[in-house]
């Protein structure tokens, strides 16, 4: 169909990987389950970011807010209403996050480019501070959640959340909604002249993004057993999903999951071999990815002109 749907082979491969990931609990290994659940969680966050950042062109540096909202919803459900049910936590988290997104979105989405990016970063930092001051949410010391007996149930839940996010992304790119998003990204003024109510669709994109992040957060909270402001609003959870989307391919369906897989693999290798300076190496990885894969791996597969086309792009951004 054209520019909005990506490479079909990559998509099939990614779906296969996703299906394979569903079988990890059968390995009966806590280590692999943790690792796999991490991949699924980051992939979900990345899918969410991708909807607003990749498809609609609004680069958010504060998506972790919704992840944090998800974790705290889950925690509050246990602390105050003694609810352990994962589906309930997910649904409540999504509802709260969507409300937040709609309320915040209407003023914030009027900003563009750098202003929007930093405003979202500011929201993430500010929310962490505010939550740390709310006693009902455990303030600075955080809240505990009693994990369910069947530990693998969190893995399954995260897998479902991740698969649902990927499916949602796929459906969006094959529907009119996806075109509204992309039109806004390409030229917001021209899109308005063509009948696209930009404000409404930006808020919708943000709300979808928020729902995905919150669902991931709700599951994470239960699996982790405990959350406090630094855990809920961790910078890693904010930035990694973006780098993953960038690595895999911004604005593609398969990109976030591929990026999550590769980056988690790199992270684990670094962590086990160089525990002291693993964050340092990670910074180096980010720098390298950004310099050499400005549009992600999947773009490399699609680029016209082969290698010359790739090299030509580097020249375009220099001074």
């Amino acid at each position, binding site marked *: 169909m054209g520019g909005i749907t990506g490479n079909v082979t990559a998509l099939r491969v990614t779906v296969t990987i996703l299906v394979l990931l569903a079988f990890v609990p059968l390995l009966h290994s806590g280590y692999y389950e943790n690792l796999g659940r991490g991949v699924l969680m980051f992939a979900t966050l990345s899918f969410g970011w991708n909807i607003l*950042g990749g498809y609609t062109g609004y*680069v958010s*540096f504060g998506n972790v807010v919704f992840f944090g909202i998800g974790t705290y919803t889950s925690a509050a459900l246990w602390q105050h209403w003694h609810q352990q049910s994962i589906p309930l936590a997910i649904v409540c988290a999504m509802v709260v996050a969507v409300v937040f997104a709609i309320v915040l979105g209407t*003023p*914030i989405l*009027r*900003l563009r*480019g*750098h*202003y929007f*990016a*930093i*405003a979202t*970063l*500011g*929201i993430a*930092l*500010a929310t*962490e*501070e*505010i939550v*740390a*001051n709310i006693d009902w949410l455990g303030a600075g010391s955080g809240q505990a959640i009693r994990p369910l007996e069947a530990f693998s149930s969190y893995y399954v839940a995260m897998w479902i959340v991740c698969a649902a996010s990927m499916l949602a992304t796929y459906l969006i790119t094959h529907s009119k909604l996806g075109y509204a998003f992309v039109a806004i990204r390409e030229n917001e003024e021209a899109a308005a002249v063509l009948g696209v109510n930009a404000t409404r669709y930006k808020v919708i994109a943000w709300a979808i993004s928020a729902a995905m992040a919150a669902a991931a957060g709700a599951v994470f909270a239960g699996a982790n057993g405990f959350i406090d402001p630094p855990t809920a609003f961790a910078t890693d959870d904010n*930035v990694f999903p*973006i*780098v993953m989307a*960038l690595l895999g391919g*911004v604005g593609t369906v398969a990109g976030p999951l591929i990026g999550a897989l590769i980056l988690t693999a790199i992270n684990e290798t670094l962590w086990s071999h160089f525990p*002291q*300076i693993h*964050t*340092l190496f*990670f*910074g*180096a*990885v*980010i*720098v390298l990815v*950004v*310099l050499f894969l*400005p549009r992600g791996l999947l773009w490399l597969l699609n680029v016209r002109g082969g290698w010359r086309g790739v090299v030509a792009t*580097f020249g*375009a*951004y*220099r*001074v």
Partner: protein
Amino acid sequence: MELFAQDLVNGILAGGIFAVVALGFSLVWGIMNIINLAHGAFIMMGAYTSYVLFSTWHLDPFLSIPLAFVVLYVFGYCIQRFVINYVVRAPLLTPFLLTFGLSLLIVNMALFVFHGDTKGITTQYSGSSFSIGPVTVAWTKLWTLVVALAITAVMQAFLTASRTGRAIRAMALDIDAAQLCGVRVSHLYAVVFGLGAGLAGAAGVLISLSYSLQPSMGDPFVITAFVCCVLGGLGTVQGALVGGLVYGVLEAFGSQYIGTGLQDAVALVVLLLVLIVRPRGILGKATA
């Protein structure tokens, strides 16, 4: 009433540092259209430079300002010329993430070399202060403000009077036209970034006089710099100065009446109010 006056004075004194922080950030943003998320890391490097010079050779921090400036200038120049330049005109996300990655690298390098424990610089004059009526003023902070103002004056003179400064301003207006007039853009881009880093380094030294040092100390200043630039108006020295001073005062009052743990929330509210009510900032020019 005394409390109000004290807060006001504290705010202005802190505002001087914010102005220098904002100035470097504003230069890079205004001229190269890059939001440098590593600005905080540069500040930290300046602070640690002053610490090293102080603890090894007992060099007074005020005297290490020019040294820190030069060191960071060279560092920034090289980073722009050999790393950032490859994506300097790419869409927003790319330089954003790149400077974020660089920040991670630099901060963690510092963590590796200096370890995470808090360090401080205590000079002979560190604790001394004087009083004007009900208001107490710490000597260190007063001199910091004076130096900060001097730095902004020097930058203003450089940008308006020197040939390089004029070339930089021309480049900011229209990079292609400037190139056609013979301006060496790749060199000047690096100069601008170097200046931004140098100013951050100088700010770092000033900060080291009054605050404790940690590898992550510079990170909060990125948001501060952003808010000050938006508040005061992007692209001018006066804008950074006004933005810094006003923000310093707002933060002082914010800490007093809302609480010290909510700095970022205050910053965000200020930012959003400015962007919604007067997006160009206090001194900014309205864009056509």
